[in-house]
């Protein structure tokens, strides 16, 4: 029997509520993208959350941080607490484990999630998060946006939604992560200035990510079977499968192998000069 509030989403299948309420979702990053995701997951009915963000609300966040208000800025409220309030306002009985730090500082609870939503800054952060998700066989849904200015042309707003499914193509296989963009990001490190971020593209990307998660769990479309790499064009207002997908040669991953699953382990490196 569905709760009355969920009457309008019964098309998701007979046991959708059980599937969604059993899932443990990890949210890494609770800024412009992650706060949208938290709110929507709570609306849909998710009950088990593990959330990470080490930042507090700042005035410059209020143009996009869902659930935050001016009091939060004055009180320097942690973003995890803003997300907790947002979720609990919609799902009073939600189980929320909040980690007011970077996920790397407390990674063990992340490894226990059924799926992870990544709303992190930069390519290196994405690679780290994906490596963790792959090690522990956890689907990762990554979203992100950026605005680029080239000469006198209007700024170009773009973004992506990627489902990185263990066993399938990773963000490197898809060409989203590569040595060039990582190197460029490294060169800009500490010199980036404020990155353009606004509320509406984050909403579109977050909604798509939540839709993918619901389909993954309920299989309501019975069509979600392949690689998902959506490309957002904020100038045209379109979100569509990325053009690179048609050139994708394989549906498996060459970067993360089955031998790499499990906890990272240290190796003793033998210095050849000391070997007799």
């Amino acid at each position: 029997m569905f709760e009355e509030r969920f009457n309008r989403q019964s098309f998701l299948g007979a046991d959708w509520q059980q599937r969604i309420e059993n899932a443990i979702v990890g949210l890494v990053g609770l800024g412009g993208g992650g706060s949208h995701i938290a709110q929507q997951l709570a609306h849909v009915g998710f009950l088990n959350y593990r959330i990470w963000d080490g930042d507090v609300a700042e005035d410059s966040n209020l143009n996009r941080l869902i659930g935050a208000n001016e009091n939060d800025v004055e009180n320097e409220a942690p973003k995890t607490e803003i997300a907790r309030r947002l979720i609990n306002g919609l799902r009073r009985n939600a189980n929320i484990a909040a980690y007011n730090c970077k996920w790397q500082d407390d990674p063990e609870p992340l490894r226990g999630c059924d799926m992870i939503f990544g709303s992190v800054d930069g390519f290196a952060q994405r690679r780290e998060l994906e490596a963790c998700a792959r090690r522990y066989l956890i689907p990762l849904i990554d979203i992100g946006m950026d605005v680029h200015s080239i000469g006198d042309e209007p700024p170009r707003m773009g973004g992506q939604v990627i489902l990185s499914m263990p066993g399938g193509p990773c963000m490197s296989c898809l060409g989203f992560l590569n040595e060039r963009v990582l190197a460029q990001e490294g060169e800009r490190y500490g010199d980036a200035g404020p990155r353009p971020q606004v509320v509406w593209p984050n909403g579109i990307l977050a909604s798509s990510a939540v839709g993918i998660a619901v389909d993954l769990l309920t299989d309501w479309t019975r069509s979600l079977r392949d690689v998902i790499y959506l490309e957002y064009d904020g100038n045209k207002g379109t979100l569509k499968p990325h053009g690179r997908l048609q050139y994708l040669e394989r549906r498996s991953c060459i970067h993360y192998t089955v031998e790499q699953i499990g906890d990272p382990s240290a190796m003793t490196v033998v210095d050849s000069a000391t070997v007799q």
Partner: protein
Amino acid sequence: MQLRILRALYERINEDLARSHEVAFERVGFVSAKLGNRHSGEPVVLFANHYPVADQNYIDDPSAGARINSDAIREAMQVVLDTGMGLFHVHCHAHRGRPGFSSMDLDETPDVVSSLRVANPNEAHGMLLLSNDECIAHVWMPGSNEPVFDNRITIVGYPLRITM
């Protein structure tokens, strides 16, 4: 206790177990697994590869769905030694929904698991039972003689299935 298996691996095992055999009514196999997050209060068993039992290693015994010989156990122990991973005995009850171990499974398979645990006591070993769309497991953790029954198994892929 959490366990995760890629859907591609799950389907490959199911396909293999569905093959007919000259003398056995059903097939069995082994799946390697690595214990992850082992230093937390929430360890995760991560399944890696499937190892079918060779045709010649089945015993003709009409009283059982499948009975395997000592060569099959020795080869399974060798997999444990070679890979450094844990190993789970696996078979399938071909129906939809949550499967259940038979009394014969519960009587006999733990002896197989004991042999695997000798080969590598530092990894999790156990017994895995598939249906057409779900699975359950009993897991013997390192250092424990009692299996963990209360497991949460996720089939990771399209769609994502969590059995609790």
